[in-house]
């Protein structure tokens, strides 16, 4: 299947060798699917886990970056000479420094210098300092004098194409031609409709703001560089850094065994990797460079804003006849995909013969976007799922029923309209509605007083979540029956390590606490792509299973000799190998002489290719209940239920955690989060966690229910699991908007639904209670 490139990956990635044989799907599991605490819980809860920002090396320096304070400017002159003599300062690099004369690629073909005189967004790097303490480094950064030539800017994508708008790049503000998609004939479709509705929607730009700051520690040992990097994928960072520094991959080691969240903003290398490496080289000392929280609002990505105009046609029986969507978005100052995947749900979520979409991506003088948890999808859901609600109302149909009426069996947006391997959308909607008590609460009174109650539903699918090659994993079995799992994948908080250990336990019977895990270190662990796209479990778990099976085969061969039973008549029971013919013929793994002599069994596993001619997508439906104070516009989310088809549930506990996390992030999109540019200067005014408001414990309900539609997908991969982390946040904001509408009869088409926005709409429409 053609899957759009979601992430910018340098160079070719190695294809996995085909697996020697494909194991049959599990029919029943003993470990997989249970609710088990994380295998690395102790490390993360005791403080022994060393995150990259925790690394303190002997003789380490601290670095800080001087960033352009203007939205659009040219550096005329940087003077770091005074600064070099300041207390504690050990190195200063600017665009004039030979050591920093490196290229930086924003895309495969668009590059600037590491410190480029042309600064197209506030926060572009201009110079950097290494000093004995971070305080001294910042003293120096503040003291560097820079002469800027400041240019007019454009910070609002809606103004980027106006005549006379300042050009972000020489060619103007269009990022290529608009992306167009069409199937059927929308004119005909609208003509066939009984009701046609049209509305404009907009989602504000969001910031990822993971808890751990972006940054790294760099250390040289002669020609070898080690980076401890807070990243979602060590191999991607290794590739990029090695290529830009023109070093062999073998001489760049990237370690990120623990990392404090990324949500897509840490899928790639960053300038700070190079800056730290250069400063460490110049000073011949380790250098720690972690951005400040404020910097992370400027230059390490965002979820682009999306302006959407959607026209939809429906027959009175609920048959969708046409969708016509136009999108305007921006990835900021460089071509980073400002409208990517915003239209995907309109194209693919519901059965509809006539669909046209057109997406225009423009440049603004803003920080470049990066993929953020289900890129494009929550934005598209905000429009599509509010529209579905409006259509349902227009034809007098229940919104759940309207969605059920249009559940697809084939992926209409993929070429040739191939079927999905599994489509759990129907179960998500029906079982979710039942568990939520949808029918009853829909009929309930909204309340007599000024505080109104309402419920909302929204659905979604995630374009990826299938995973695929490459992935290589090694499982080792020690002679006492304990094991080692070696994989390159980062556990970004989703429980990857736990799920993979469970797969090993499933196949080899090793208790979880006897599995040692090495991960996310290019020096010592196997190749993995970055943890993102909700593909880590469906990518790595089959590779882990394959590695464990390789160990098992060898184990049975050893045991077969000692037990005098054919290898294909053995199985593992607890810590012993047992004959299928006679349970009394058995030997403890630790007692196998052959294993003792070998010292270790090693199994190498790889991820095989995905099925041809079918599409593997996760599906979701969410239901929520809100209370709206019509005198103040305050919205309280009272409860949420998420019904997910992500194939097999690998670990019920971490699964539920992903669900509540996705809902929480979606509530942020719905109610509180938005990037604000100052219209006079183009500077981001809300560059901290007070002014940029992510949800707190007071903003989310305690009552969140995860309802897994636990149907293994045997065609997806050998574990039957599909991705989860992204689908869980796709419909959330739309569900909240629909519930607000149900409560007060006001449709908020622009995010966030803050009291500031809602109170005005309530007053204007006379909905005050």
């Amino acid at each position, binding site marked *: 299947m053609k899957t759009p490139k979601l992430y910018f990956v340098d160079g070719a990635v190695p294809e996995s060798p085909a697996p020697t044989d494909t194991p049959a799907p599990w029919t029943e599991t003993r470990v997989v699917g249970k609710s088990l605490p994380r295998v690395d819980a102790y490390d993360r809860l005791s403080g022994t886990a060393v995150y990259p920002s925790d690394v303190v090396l002997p003789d380490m320096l601290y670095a*800080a970056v001087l960033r352009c304070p203007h939205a659009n400017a040219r550096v005329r002159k940087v003077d770091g000479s005074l600064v070099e003599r300041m207390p504690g300062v050990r190195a200063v690099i600017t665009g004039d420094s030979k050591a920093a004369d490196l290229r930086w690629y924003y895309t495969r073909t668009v590059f600037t210098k590491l410190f480029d005189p042309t600064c197209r967004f506030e926060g572009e790097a201009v110079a950097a300092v290494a000093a004995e303490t971070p305080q001294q480094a910042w003293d120096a950064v503040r003291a560097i004098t820079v002469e800027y030539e400041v240019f007019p800017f454009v910070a609002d994508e809606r103004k980027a194409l106006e005549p006379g708008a300042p050009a972000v790049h020489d060619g103007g503000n269009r990022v290529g031609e608009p992306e167009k998609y069409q199937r059927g004939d929308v004119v005909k479709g609208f003509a066939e409709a009984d009701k046609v509705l049209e509305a404009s929607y907009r989602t504000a730009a969001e910031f990822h703001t993971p808890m751990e700051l972006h940054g790294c520690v760099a250390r040289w040992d002669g020609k070898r560089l080690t980076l401890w990097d807070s990243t979602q994928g060590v191999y991607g960072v290794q590739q990029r850094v090695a290529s830009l520094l023109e070093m062999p991959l073998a001489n760049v080691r990237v370690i990120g065994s623990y990392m404090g969240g990324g949500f897509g903003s840490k899928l790639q290398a960053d300038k700070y990797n190079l800056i730290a490496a250069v400063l460490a080289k110049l000073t011949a000392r380790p250098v720690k460079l972690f951005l400040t929280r404020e910097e992370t609002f400027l230059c390490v990505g965002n979820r682009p804003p999306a302006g959407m105009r959607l026209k939809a046609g429906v027959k009175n029986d609920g048959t969708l006849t046409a969708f016509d969507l136009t999108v305007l978005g921006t990835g900021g100052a460089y071509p980073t995909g400002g409208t990517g995947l915003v239209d995907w749900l309109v194209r693919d979520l519901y059965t509809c013969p006539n669909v046209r979409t057109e997406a225009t991506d423009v440049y603004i003088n803003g920080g470049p976007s990066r993929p953020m948890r289900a890129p494009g999808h929550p934005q598209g859901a905000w429009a599509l799922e509010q529209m579905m609600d409006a259509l349902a109302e227009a034809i007098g149909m229940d919104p759940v029923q309207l969605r059920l009426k249009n559940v697809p069996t084939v992926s209409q947006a993929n070429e040739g309209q191939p079927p999905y391997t599994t489509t759990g959308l129907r179960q998500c909607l029906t079982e979710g509605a039942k568990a939520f008590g949808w029918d009853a609460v829909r009929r309930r009174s909204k309340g007599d007083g000024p505080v109104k109650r309402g419920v909302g539903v929204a659905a979604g699918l995630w374009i990826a979540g299938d995973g695929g090659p490459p992935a290589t994993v090694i499982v080792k079995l020690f002679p006492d029956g304990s094991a080692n799992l070696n994989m390159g994948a980062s556990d970004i908080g989703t429980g990857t390590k736990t799920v993979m250990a469970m797969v090993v336990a499933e196949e080899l019977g090793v208790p979880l606490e006897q599995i040692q895990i090495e991960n996310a270190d290019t020096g010592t662990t196997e190749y993995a792509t970055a943890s993102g796209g909700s593909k880590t479990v469906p990518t790595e778990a089959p590779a882990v299973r394959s590695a464990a099976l390789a160990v098992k085969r060898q184990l049975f061969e050893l045991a077969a000799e000692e037990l005098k039973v054919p290898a294909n008549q053995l199985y593992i029971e607890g810590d012993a190998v047992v004959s299928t013919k006679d349970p009394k013929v058995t030997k403890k793994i630790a007692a196998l002489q052959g294993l003792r002599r070998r010292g270790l069994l090693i199994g190498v596993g790889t991820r095989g290719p995905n099925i041809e001619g079918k599409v593997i997508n996760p599906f979701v439906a969410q239901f929520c209940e809100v209370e709206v104070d019509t*005198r103040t516009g305050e919205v309280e989310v009272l409860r949420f239920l998420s019904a997910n088809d992500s194939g097999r549930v690998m670990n019920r506990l971490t699964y539920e955690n992903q669900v509540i996390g996705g809902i929480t992030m979606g509530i942020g999109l719905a109610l509180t989060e938005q990037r604000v540019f100052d219209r006079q200067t183009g*500077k981001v*005014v809300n560059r901290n966690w007070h002014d940029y408001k992510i949800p707190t414990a007071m903003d989310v309900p305690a009552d969140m229910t995860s309802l897994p539609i636990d149907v293994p997908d045997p065609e997806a991969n050998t574990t039957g699991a599909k991705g989860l982390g992204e689908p869980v946040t796709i419909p959330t904001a739309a569900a909240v908007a629909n519930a607000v509408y149900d409560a007060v009869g006001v449709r908020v088409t622009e995010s966030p639904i803050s*009291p500031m926005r809602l*109170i*005005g709409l309530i007053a204007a429409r006379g909905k005050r209670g």
Partner: protein
Amino acid sequence: MLPGFGYARPRNLREAVHLLSAPGARVQAGGTDLLGCLRDGVFGVDTVVSLSGVPDLRGIRRALDGGLVVGAMTTLSEVAAPTDVVKGYPTLAQGAAAAASPQLRNQGTIGGNICQRPRCWYFRGDFHCARKGGEKCFAAEGENQFHCIFGGDVCFIVHPSDTAPALVALEAVVRITGPNGSRSVPAEKFFILPETDYTRENVLTAGEIVTEIVLPPQPAGTRGTYRKVRARGSWDFALAGAAVVATITAGKVERARIVLSGVAPTPWRVPDAERAIVGRRLNKRTVRDAAAAALKGAQTMSGNAYKVELLRGTVEEALLALA
């Protein structure tokens, strides 16, 4: 990242005042606002003068007249704790509880809370705005959704404190010690508008320290509440708020003070709204009248017109909570 500075921890008030009289000295109470301002480069500092070593500034005691004296270094958590403040002055306790976050309330003090600098994102950001000695207020033509609808002039901040409106409503008195001795200022006169001086938020002059806040005894039948509306459930300043203290006898409002937060550069008392309920019963109609009176004179900018309607609802809800 914090700039370099010296540090002094004087052991009594006299020493503190002396140290603070030096140019470039800044007082630190809980430190939560000071360190934030220093990090953001809002102002510079040569010496941070910490009050943490000065005895007798922390704690709540009963005054001879039956009121309370709250030491300026008393933390917001202590003010909000279920003690005499909650019993006698719920408006203040609720204001303190509505401020910031639990940890900041454990660190931040009542004195610091009423003296904190504005949260305007231009003032805190790297904009050389009028309040910092610059040429203009960036909010006037800029992103002013969190800015004032009353009392703006040259600068359009809102006062950030949740306890200050309560203190004004409670007719509290702020005790101040400085190089020229001590003085007492009614809370209502403590805060100053931009028209008086748009670079300061209160009457304190160089070397002066808030030492105590005196809460007068409240007549029998006095009730109070603080209603705060914010964009986020914790850790957020008021979009609009109303501190109300009313003495209600035989069902009728005998006297009332209504003071707004989040809408003006100072805690904003609305005498017209007070008059709308005095001598009347609190019911839907009188409350509506009072709320309408509270909005009189509001001047909105491009992004904050919502505050008018929001304030109406906030005042109504605060008053109804006392009915």
